[in-house]
């Protein structure tokens, strides 16, 4: 896919997702990936993964008469709806799911997914749910996720989700900034309790 780079190192497999305006989610590629999975008998995993992120989605499939499109069917619905009608967020999530599934095919012990500017295209009301979906999926497949963002709302959503019982102890926040003298870039770890205080008190937490 245009928006993903896969890299295999000695000990781990890496998947890098980044967004640019000219690199909106390429559903055609996802549809091709899905078709290949169907042919090789692995599509069940995608179905199950979608269940992990949204239990109301019952089925995902393509139609030969409508090439390059993915369709979803929700529980209780008879009709299939093109993912194009689900907005950027669900398309993005499907892309994340596929990227994660690509990673699971690696025989490397450690698998890492990097998502740049994770907030792009996701409405602020859906941000917490996106974190929940991603963390559930990464936990399910034992993948480590690194995501970058400048969005205060996305950081707030992350802190909120990580304080929920289901996700307790599963997330960490690192602020990147420069050392004042050497200008070297450093990462400062913020524990989630302190992050909660910092967000509530309006402290600077984005390398300002």
């Amino acid at each position, binding site marked *: 896919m245009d928006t993903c780079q896969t890299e295999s190192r000695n000990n781990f497999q890496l998947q890098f997702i980044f967004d640019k305006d000219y690199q909106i989610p390429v559903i055609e590629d996802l549809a091709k990936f899905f078709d290949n999975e169907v042919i090789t008998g692995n599509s069940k995993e995608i179905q199950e993964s979608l269940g992990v992120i949204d239990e109301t989605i019952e089925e995902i499939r393509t139609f030969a008469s409508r090439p390059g499109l993915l369709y979803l069917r929700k529980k209780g619905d008879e009709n299939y709806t093109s993912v194009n009608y689900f907005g950027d967020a669900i398309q993005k999530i499907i892309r994340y799911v596929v990227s994660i599934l690509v990673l699971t095919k690696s025989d490397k012990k450690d698998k890492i997914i990097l998502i740049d500017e994770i907030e792009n295209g996701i409405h602020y009301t859906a941000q917490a749910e996106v974190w929940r979906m991603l963390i559930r999926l990464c936990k399910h497949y034992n993948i480590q996720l690194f995501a970058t963002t400048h969005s205060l709302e996305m950081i707030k959503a992350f802190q909120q989700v990580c304080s929920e019982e289901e996700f307790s102890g599963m997330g960490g926040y690192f*602020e990147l900034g420069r050392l*004042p003298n050497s200008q070297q870039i450093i990462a*400062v*770890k913020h524990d989630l309790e302190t992050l909660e*205080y*910092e967000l509530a*008190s309006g402290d600077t937490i984005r*390398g300002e």
Partner: protein
Amino acid sequence: MRKVIIVEGKQDTEFIKALAPTLEVKSIEIKELGGAGKSHLEKLQSPLQALKNDNAINPIEKIGILLDLDPKDFTVESRLAFVNESVEKVFGVKLLDTSVFQQVSDSSIQITCYFIKPNLDVLLRKIASKPSPSADCLYRCLETQANIGQKEKDKAWPLYYMRWDICDAKERRKGLENVSFKCTDTKEAWNLNALLLEDLKTFLSLF
């Protein structure tokens, strides 16, 4: 480099800004805890940890912790122990006394603390400079109520004084705006030259 004073709440912020106008000139940051009673230990630890995090990117020179002593709950020693529980956990140093800076090793940070005796609310009552018939009357009434704790009574007096003795009827209608230390200080409701403030002024001059 940055200098930061941690206080309990908004009224403390307004009070020390009025008491030491140079704080603003020197761009000293003031952070509010939102309470620091005996059941609020974590409230001190989080801002200290936040400052430690921030120090890596924006170095801090001095940190001051300004809390009420609240003699009903603490002695000076036990209040110092309360502060040290967080300071030691976050910075690995122990404050030995009030108004004495302790250097944090491998860091630019010096840290100290000061306790307002007995607390800001009583101190404000002592430095009120205008007649206070309404506040005194309401306070006397409160004192007859056995089910109200001393701390709540102490907190009530400055609020009564500002609302009923200092603000006029029109100002009271916009209580959120006017019933504050900052606003009443413009009406010379407080004697900021009182001798009992000298010790606190000396502490603030360390920054």
